[in-house]
């Protein structure tokens, strides 16, 4: 079990990051050149990482007899504590890694010129912006993102989970908007509190399972039931719910999402938040099946509340980035529904949603970033008729928006549909209420588009230039994938399905008649 391929996947961005950080920091005249080299290095290494991930994906076996975790490698790290440096991919982790590694080069391209000039004119005290630090941090973040999805040792997962905070914190805190410090601290503290709760559960898991190991495969099925399991579940759940973020743990996201630089926000919402939902699927359900079933209804209700509440808040936003952040909270509600409905459609839909949401929201943040870079303002009211001046930017904005509202034909539709169908099988009322979220999504997205892109052309907007080649390249892969997966999602679902089945099997293992649950709940509803 010493497959090195995942270590390689971690090593590529790590080397890139180290190379960038190790670059000599020349004087004033050298700075421009140094920036260019840093950018190019970041692009090369992030593309390499993506190519590497794609190669792995082609070697991933999806047949019915394929093993759950592939490319497994495990090395003893701290023998006495039973900690292993252990990696392995199941289908869920693989597609999320593919999505993340694709997003990083897009973000690098999109942020190409962000630090040559001060991006936000509102900022009274422009901080010292170093492209070198930004791109180095991006690649470092990529290392942790890949690690968190690929780890199969819970201790190692926790380490990556917490480590991700650090580069993200600096990306927000040093390169963000005017209230970046506040947003960075809020982000950090929320995540840290969640992380500490999870740490308590990780330790509890270790001692109560009696396996003297942190390996995921050793722990599944060995967690004692009853109150212990519920407490341990809550520790993990709250950490992931904060990360996801699920209502009512979401209040940090609008601040962080709005203040982070556009590229950072795309990764924050596109990838980091997926770690929360990924955690539900990978850790909460298989490790604590009994507690998951016990809390499922509560979580489903919270998810539906989140869908509606965030949608209403999104409609009321004047700040574009805050609006996008709120749409994400709503979308995470759908993912929550799909996961905790405990149906295969729901599970598959949720995973698909994670991938599509990463692409769509990543795209939306990047495009909004383009708009903000031109208009030096995040306020919706400062724009009007933009699409007439810059048709390509307008088109990209429209596609990103339509993807966010899950238009049929785009990839997000399939996932939203699947999660709702999966929920409907068990919880009809919740699914029906959740569906209204789609209508609200159409409202806030189209209103945003109408206000900024349509209508009378403002004077300030006239001077905007359209997307150049670099910017087009940054978003083209995302747009192509959103459309392609909307028409033909089979490659992704083939990879996901076995992993989702394993997960559902883990949850249902101590619950041999899931059908009964399905039959009971409508009966309960008729009473």
């Amino acid at each position: 079990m010493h497959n090195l391929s995942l270590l390689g996947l971690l090593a590529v961005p790590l080397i890139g990051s180290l190379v960038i950080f190790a670059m000599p920091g020349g004087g004033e005249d050298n700075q421009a050149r140094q920036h260019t080299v840093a950018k190019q290095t970041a692009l090369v290494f992030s593309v390499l990482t993506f190519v590497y991930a794609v190669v792995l994906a082609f070697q991933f076996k999806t047949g019915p007899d394929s093993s759950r975790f592939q490319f497994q490698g495990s090395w003893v790290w701290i023998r006495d504590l039973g900690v292993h440096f252990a990696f392995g991919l199941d289908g869920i982790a693989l597609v999320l890694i593919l999505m993340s590694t694709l997003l990083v080069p897009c973000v690098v391209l999109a942020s190409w010129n962000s630090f040559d000039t001060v991006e936000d004119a509102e900022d009274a005290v422009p901080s010292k912006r170093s492209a070198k630090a930004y791109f180095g941090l991006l690649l470092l973040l990529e290392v942790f993102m890949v690690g968190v999805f690929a780890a199969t040792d819970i201790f190692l997962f926790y380490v990556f989970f917490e480590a991700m905070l650090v580069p993200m914190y600096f990306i927000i805190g040093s390169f963000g908007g005017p209230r970046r410090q506040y947003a960075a601290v809020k982000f950090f503290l929320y995540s840290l509190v969640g992380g500490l709760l999870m740490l308590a559960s990780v330790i509890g898991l270790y001692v109560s399972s009696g396996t003297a190991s942190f390996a995921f495969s050793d722990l599944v099925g060995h967690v004692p039931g009853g109150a212990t399991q519920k407490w341990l579940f809550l520790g993990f759940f709250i950490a992931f719910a904060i990360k996801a973020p699920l209502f009512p743990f979401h209040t940090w996201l609008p601040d962080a999402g709005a203040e982070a630089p556009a590229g950072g926000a795309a990764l924050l919402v596109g990838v980091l938040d997926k770690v929360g939902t990924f955690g539900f699927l990978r850790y909460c359900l298989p490790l604590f099946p009994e507690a998951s079933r016990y809390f499922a209804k509560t979580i489903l209700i919270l998810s539906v509340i989140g869908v509606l509440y965030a949608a209403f808040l999104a409609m009321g936003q004047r700040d574009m980035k805050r609006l996008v952040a709120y749409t994400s909270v709503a979308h995470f509600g759908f993912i929550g529904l799909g996961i905790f409905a405990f149906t295969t459609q729901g599970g598959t839909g949720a995973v698909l949603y994670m991938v599509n949401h990463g692409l769509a929201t990543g795209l939306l943040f990047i495009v909004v970033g383009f708009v903000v870079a031109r208009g030096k303002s995040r306020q919706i009211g400062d724009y009007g008729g933009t699409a007439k001046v810059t048709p390509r930017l307008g088109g990209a904005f429209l596609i990103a928006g339509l993807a966010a509202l899950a238009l049929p034909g785009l990839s997000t539709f399939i996932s939203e549909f699947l999660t709702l169908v999966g929920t409907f099988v068990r919880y009809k009322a919740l699914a029906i209420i959740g569906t209204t979220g789609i209508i609200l999504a159409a409202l806030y997205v189209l209103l945003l588009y109408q206000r900024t892109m349509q209508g009378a052309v403002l004077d300030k907007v006239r001077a905007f230039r359209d997307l150049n080649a670099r910017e087009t390249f940054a978003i083209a892969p995302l747009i192509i994938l959103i459309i392609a997966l909307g028409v033909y999602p089979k490659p992704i679902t083939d990879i996901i399905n076995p992993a989702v089945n394993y997960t559902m099997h883990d949850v249902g293992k101590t619950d041999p008649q899931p059908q009964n649950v399905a039959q009971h709940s409508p009966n309960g509803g008729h009473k």
Partner: protein
Amino acid sequence: MSALSGVLTAAGTDPSTYVHAPSISYVALLPILIVLGGACLGVLVEAVAPRALRYPIQVSLTVLVLLAALIDVISLHNKLTTTVSGAIAIDGVSLFIQGTVLVLAVLSVLLIADRGVEPGSAIVASAAITVGSPADRELASSRRVQTEIYPLALFAVAGMLIFPAANNLLLMFVALEVLSLPLYLMAGLARRRRLLSQEAAIKYFLLGAFASAFFLYGVAMLYGYANSVDLSAIFAAQNSSTQSDTLLWLGFGLLMVGLLFKAGIAPFHSWTPDVYQGSPTPVTTFMAACTKVAAFGAILRVFYVGFSISAWDWRWLIWAAAIASMVVGAVFGLTQTDVKRILAYSSIAHAGFILVGLVALDAQGISSVLFYLAAYGFTTVAAFGLVMLVRDANGEATHLSQWSGLARRSPLFAATFTFLLLALAGIPLTSGFTGKFVVFRAAYHVAGPLVVVGLISSAVAAFFYLRIVVMMFFAEPAEDGPTITIPTLLTYIPILAGVLVTVALGVFPQPLIDLAGKAAKLHG
């Protein structure tokens, strides 16, 4: 003292061996003798060497003596024995503790010796001058320094070497006094804020004297019970003695008061914040790191060698002390506004965590305690070393509000201190996490509720560590705020060593876990 113990043990058993002189293995005692000899030599240097030469001679002598003793301790690892008719045990635990004390003492002495960070020295030249008198004002402006602190430190270290190795309670008492008396003096030697320092010294002395009296009273009771002050004899007597158990429990309780006081465990902790705050910071470092390690070594020995047979009866007492310590440390720490006091409350909480490991009366419990002591010692040395660097015109700026925005002035300092705070909070990849982990794992099966309290109080304590972090990183720096002094080599080495060990024990703790596991043996 060896003759004394021979007399005492003999008197109770067999008159024919009354004048039996104990055999003494000087090899086993060599580390202790080296340090004691070095201390005496230091006194002579004070008396005869010219003033200009004293500082270099004293510093190099002290460091060399400590290093020589350390090498000797390491070389003893395969010559485990008991000597002086069983009064001193050179076993795994005492060697591990002695080694840890010596390493930490070297680092602390380097901090004490530093003369660059605080112009002159952090140590006052003439502690007996009345504060506020003309002589005192003259002293404040002069750069005069004295060097008597080095032999004092060596005497204290010698006490700390005997303390955890003493299988005889009277010897343990002597060691307690040998280590305490110099510390009382050293606490009063701060160059700045001398009233605070003198107050700390007086408090420490008075309370320490009480604690010693309790200890001695306990020894008397136990002698009445077991007819001996040897721990092994007390152990045996618990099976056979016809004396009332009241004597035993009174004796044990009183003994514990003395020991828990030295280790700074609630409810005998109240001196800690005042003394930590008032003492010169290098001396605080010395106390926080070395004294704690030595005191826990002695507690380990008393528990395991003397009283493990009746563990079931006294364990509630340790539970209570552990819970009190963790809760007091975590909760009261929240309200503190002085960095040194915060670290003091943190040390109280940590003492509670270590006590949790002691509750598991097995080899795993011992090794977890040993590991935790080493891990905590290094982290605390580095933390106090960094505290020394934050200075304004009035010396060290330890008030929390003065730390606002320090990250803006020195990101490296803030990042390093944050890392140490995370280690104290027990975040993974730091030694603090590994330490808590091994301790809680050892105690989980015997003391589940204690572990739960431990985890909760860690979470509470994490809050006040984070407060410092938030203050440094996110508050606006004050106009006339303190600056970060560039550390001199003598400050730099202990800080660097502390940080590196904190990282290493977090990322690759296995070697030290193995060592502590091998060392987890006590000779009766």
